[in-house]
């Protein structure tokens, strides 16, 4: 970690009976860190504290080596995009994007706003009110407005939420380009693994106000110790205790229940030994699902469904087919709650 960028150390925030922390996060210039966690984990609370909207109980927040806990939000120069985007619905797109220039008394705010409107493809809708825009256009207005302020850091709650796959790809490309060009650090909150994976170099996982760790996205595959993280990072065969208890009459339910932690059990892909040829032990294909240009296969064992594959389309078995299916129990992991 260099001296630049954002550094949050041992931060604690207590608000309305909820306690966040201690949490430590660092974001270097030109990189993005994603805050990930289930609802109520404290992700937005952390972002609002960094933005200056919540008092902190303990810990420090510094930027480029300077402590900023007592700096008011308007002087932190952080581009805070709140949940819901916080657009000014009574003002046009141009007025939204030009707001940071106007509020500083820049008489040429209209002229200086134009390049931002052009860059984010908003020129054609500049005179519309935000409520008349599509979700993607609203996201672009929020992005352009935050960047027009010339921020030192972007704080973004669900930057690409509620967008279709194509819009996520297009907007995340623009955002990545801006981050690299401007050497901007970005701290974002997301519920979407696609967004987290496409933008962030580091994932910080929060749960019930506590930090479960900070690591590059790929390493979370092996580090997942709880049900939320396991599902978020892409593990497909994650079962809660309640699911396993309801599947006591299946072949694998009782066996997995024995190995389950309070949060259930994770059966990683490399723990499943299966093949399309019939054999023993066997299981039945319940469904096939497209996965890119291949197919995932859902295998049913009583009330439990396992996902395996993908396989090429020509290899996809018919529903109801019998396949060989075994689990290497030494690779199964119990999960924390």
């Amino acid at each position, binding site marked *: 970690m260099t001296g630049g960028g954002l550094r949050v150390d041992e931060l604690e925030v207590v608000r309305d009976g909820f306690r966040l922390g201690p949490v430590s996060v660092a974001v270097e210039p030109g990189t993005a860190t994603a805050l990930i966690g289930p609802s109520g984990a404290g992700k937005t609370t952390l972002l*609002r504290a960094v*933005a*200056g*909207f919540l008092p902190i109980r303990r810990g420090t927040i510094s930027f480029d080596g300077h402590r900023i806990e007592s700096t*008011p*939000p*308007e002087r*932190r120069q*952080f*581009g*805070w*995009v*709140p*949940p*819901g*985007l*916080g*657009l*000014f*619905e*009574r*003002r*046009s797109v*141009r*007025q939204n994007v*030009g*707001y*940071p220039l*106007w*509020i*500083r008394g820049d008489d040429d705010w209209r002229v200086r706003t134009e390049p931002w409107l052009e860059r984010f493809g908003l020129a054609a809708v*500049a*005179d519309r009110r935000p409520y008349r825009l599509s979700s993607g256009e609203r996201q672009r207005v*929020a992005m352009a*407005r*935050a960047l027009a*302020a010339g921020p030192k850091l972007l*704080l973004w709650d669900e930057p690409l939420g509620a967008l279709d796959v194509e819009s996520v790809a297009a907007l995340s490309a623009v955002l990545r380009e801006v981050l690299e060009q401007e050497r901007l650090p970005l701290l974002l909150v997301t519920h979407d693994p696609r967004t987290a994976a496409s933008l962030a170099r580091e994932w910080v996982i929060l749960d019930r106000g506590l930090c479960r760790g900070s690591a590059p996205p790929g390493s979370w595959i092996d580090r997942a110790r709880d049900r939320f993280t396991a599902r978020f990072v892409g593990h497909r065969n994650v079962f809660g205790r309640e699911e396993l208890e309801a599947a006591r009459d299946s072949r694998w339910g009782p066996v997995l229940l024995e190995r389950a932690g309070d949060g259930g059990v994770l059966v990683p892909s490399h723990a499943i030994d299966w093949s399309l040829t019939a054999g023993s032990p066997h299981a039945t294909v319940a469904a096939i699902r497209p996965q890119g240009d291949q197919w995932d296969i859902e295998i049913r064992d009583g009330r439990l469904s396992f996902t395996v594959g993908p396989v090429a389309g020509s290899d996809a078995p018919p529903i109801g087919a019998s396949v060989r299916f075994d689990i290497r129990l030494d690779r199964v992991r119990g999960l924390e709650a």
Partner: protein
Amino acid sequence: MRLGYGLGGVLSASLLLLFVLPIAALFWTAGSAGIFAALANQGFVVSIEFTLLASAIAVAIGLLLGVPLGYFLARFEFRGRSLIESIVLLPVMIPHLVVGLGLLLVFLPGTPLGEAASAVGLPVFDHPAGVVLVMLYVGTSYVVLASQNAFRSLDRGAVEAARSLGATPAEAFWSVSLPHAASGVLTGGLLMWARGVSEVGGFLILAAAVYPGPGWGGPVTSPASVYIYNLYGTGGLAGATAASALLVLVALAIFLAVRALAGAAPRFGPLGGGG
């Protein structure tokens, strides 16, 4: 389903008819000749002018006092908030004759507030200040409630975004919160104004006959509603009906003019004008 819609339609139409019929009856009975006659009644015209001025002053003070309270009630959670909300509703709940009596007791000569009001040249009893005070008391609740609702509908994120983009708390209030709440605040102001103009009970106790001073076409006048009440008591139905019709016309004209102006006016601040 169709029967339900039909029944709902009949009930709604009945209610609207109930609203419109008395006003229609006023105009039907007064006729244009009666309204012109009321216009020629110099005393009543002075009374309307006085009422409009007093209500404008009351609304200005009401907005000044009521909007901040509405904002605080909308934006902040604190102990005792529901008590404050109940106090705000008090003037709406109690009979306005009682309001007049209460204000009289508080502002009677000899009481601390009565003496203080006299000392600054605004004795309340039978004085224009009393009319404004009654209007303020019976109407400001509407400003507070309407402002509270308007500010409550504002996305907290918009205010935080404004702060983060460089606005101080005051700048964020003027440039984001208030424009958002403007139409709600305006509605509250109009309701307060209408409530003040239609008040009778409080005036009868505190300021039925006021001495507005020179330049008002007579030594004594009354709020328009009290003037009509007196016309009814002394001259019978005909004079009161014509005066009432004239008052309704003036009130409607002002109401529509304010709504039209508010709709046509640019939003707050230089950002609000053109694009």
